[in-house]
């Protein structure tokens, strides 16, 4: 069933998005069933759900991707609906079909909408009929030689993209004809390894363009609306790092035009439920349909904060066959929201993923701060899943208030035990270009780095660091010498140990 009444939801996911869905269901009074792999027994989604069922080994193929196992768990626990979250099986039309064939409600769009939008070429064909503007590009299934010909015709720079792609995998920009062959081979190899499908196509690469997406909601009663845009140009290797709603680049006029386009794109596949139309917008405010994500996005909270709409709850309402809560397109967002993705990756070492146990976590809180996370002090970040630790989202009446709150929240946030990208975000939030809203999708890779700062450290700052480093070295040396031979002097004289430490001895 695509829509209809249900009483219990199986959440076929893990991490922060599983927790997010469980919270939405709980806020609606609907019980939930969590599933978990061997390494997720202690995870918050297992503990927050009403029921929890072990489904296999740590590798996704052994657990979170096991379609029949998931449907079987739903049957055994009496869950009559499945929410797929994002990633894993969320955009798998076959799974959506099997869920519905099993008589369960699929909390998402129809398998045909997923399949059409999941195939880049089919998507282009579908939306073109509804007059949605497209980036010049080729068909799928072309051999290497024809692709090169097409690239020449379109004109460099071009982008090679995997037909089955997503998240930047199997995607390669090519600026010069002589680099085309090698990039093509790499893209095919990556696509083959990531999606089991090495088919790629070629598209015009828009330089200086922004990545702006529109949130749409559609219910089974024929209503389709948009809830405004999200600015997602802050990316690295096509992975979004920071998202905002609204976009500094979008005025009321552009919002209306792009919103109408987004609704047309959704209607072109008879879309029902929440979805996102991703677009590129060039410097002259020409916009082009990129793709539609047929699920809840990672960055959905920024839209929630400027609309007051709980998107996860609306997904459930719509799947129950009810009318969605909001009835109107978003004309004027309420304030401004920014999201920073806090990832377990080292911004000083080429954003290398980091694994390990979170030994200490101090969350920022207070006015205008929201954290969506599935971890806690003691959580293990394993190599089996993505590196998202948490989403830090701030709201303000203005962009400037939202940014100041984000800077404050980032400075309060402490995560110890592994490397994370909070320093990247602090650095970004101090960047004049970012503050001024002057950036495009190439900003992070081409104009931003962690080793040069727009403002060099002052000599006061360097002195403070020198003191800290020396105190650390001195303390460590003293500890080392105590192991060898007890210190002759009473350590309580050491002023730098702090009054507190002395007091508690």
């Amino acid at each position, binding site marked *: 069933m695509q829509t209809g009444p249900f009483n219990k939801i199986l959440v076929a996911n893990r991490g922060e998005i599983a927790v997010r869905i469980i919270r939405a269901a709980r806020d609606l009074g609907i019980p939930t069933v969590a599933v978990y792999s061997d390494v997720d027994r202690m995870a918050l989604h297992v503990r927050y759900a009403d029921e929890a069922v072990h489904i296999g080994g740590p590798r996704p193929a052994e657990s979170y991707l096991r379609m029949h196992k998931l449907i079987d768990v739903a049957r055994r626990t009496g869950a009559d609906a499945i929410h797929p979250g994002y990633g894993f099986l969320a955009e798998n039309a076959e799974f959506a079909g099997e869920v519905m064939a099993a008589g369960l409600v699929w909390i998402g769009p129809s398998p045909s909408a997923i399949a059409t939008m999941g195939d880049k070429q089919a998507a282009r064909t579908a939306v073109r009929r509804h007059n949605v503007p497209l980036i010049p590009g080729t068909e799928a299934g072309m051999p290497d030689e024809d692709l090169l010909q097409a690239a020449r015709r379109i004109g460099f720079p071009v982008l090679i993209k995997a037909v089955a792609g997503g998240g930047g995998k199997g995607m390669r920009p090519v600026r010069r004809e002589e680099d085309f062959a090698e990039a093509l081979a790499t893209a095919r190899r*990556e696509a083959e390894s*990531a999606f089991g499908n090495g088919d790629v196509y070629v598209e015009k690469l828009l330089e200086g363009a922004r990545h702006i997406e529109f949130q749409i909601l559609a219910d089974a009663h024929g209503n389709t609306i948009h809830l405004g845009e999200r600015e997602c140009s802050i990316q690295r290797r096509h992975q979004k790092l920071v998202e905002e709603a609204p976009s500094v680049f979008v005025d009321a006029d552009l919002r209306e035009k792009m919103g109408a386009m987004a609704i047309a794109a959704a209607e072109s596949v008879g879309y029902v439920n929440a979805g996102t139309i991703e677009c590129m917008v060039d410097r002259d405010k020409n916009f082009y349909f990129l793709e539609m994500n047929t699920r809840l996005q990672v960055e959905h909270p920024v839209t929630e904060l400027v609309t007051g709409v709980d998107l996860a709850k609306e997904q459930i309402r719509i799947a129950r066959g009810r009318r969605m809560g909001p009835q109107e397109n978003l004309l004027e967002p309420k304030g401004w929201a920014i999201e920073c993705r806090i990832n377990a990756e*080292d911004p*000083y*070492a*080429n954003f*290398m*993923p*980091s*694994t*390990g146990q979170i*030994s*200490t976590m101090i969350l920022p809180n207070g006015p205008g701060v929201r954290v969506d996370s599935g971890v806690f002090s003691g959580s293990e970040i394993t*190599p*089996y*899943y*993505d*590196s998202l630790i948490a989403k830090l989202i701030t709201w303000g009446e203005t962009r400037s208030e939202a940014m100041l709150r984000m800077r404050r929240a*980032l*400075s309060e946030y*402490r995560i*110890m*035990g592994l490397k994370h990208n*909070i*320093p990247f*975000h*602090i*650095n970004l939030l*101090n960047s004049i270009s970012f503050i001024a809203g002057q950036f495009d999708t190439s900003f992070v890779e081409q104009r931003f780095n*962690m080793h040069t*700062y727009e403002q060099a*450290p002052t*000599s006061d*700052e*360097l*002195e*403070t*660091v*020198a*003191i*800290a*480093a*020396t*105190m*650390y*070295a*001195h*303390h*460590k*040396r003293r500890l080392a010498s105590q192991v060898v031979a007890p210190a002759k*002097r009473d350590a309580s*004289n*050491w*002023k*730098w*140990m*702090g*009054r*507190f*430490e002395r007091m508690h001895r």
Partner: protein
Amino acid sequence: MKYTAIINNERFEIEIDHDGEVWVNGEARDVDFLNLGGSLFSLITENKSFEAVIDDEDNRIDVMMGGRLYETQVLDARAMLLAQRRGSLPSGSGDIHAPMPGLIVEVKALPGQAVTQGDTLVILESMKMQNELKSPVDGVVASVPVAAGQAVEKNALLIEISAPAEEDQ
């Protein structure tokens, strides 16, 4: 105890006496330094309040403060003297270890090969991502104990790099 702290090529002469009094380049400083657990420290100096994450590796002390990472060296009088005799400060090891468990996709270095800092030497797949591991130093590959297709544990030695000949003088 006298120390020399070096950050961004700037030097600070720091003395901590037996009563815990601190002097920086000869000027007294009010310093309250406190461990908050693990690598987290609170420093209050001249009333200014700072929080820092401090870790050390080889001869380097990494201080993360205010969202910035500072790579520092702190030398005591003896180490400073030695360094002055050698004509260079001690430098970190050039070995590459696995920063996380994963699968070796490709090894781009052979024993004996000269490498420059920043060269990609190993591609490691983990967390659904292919990660390029680069040479931290200029040097010569001494050994490559792993091969493509091999699964490795966290911290496994992947490539051993020795200093180039001219640095040994």
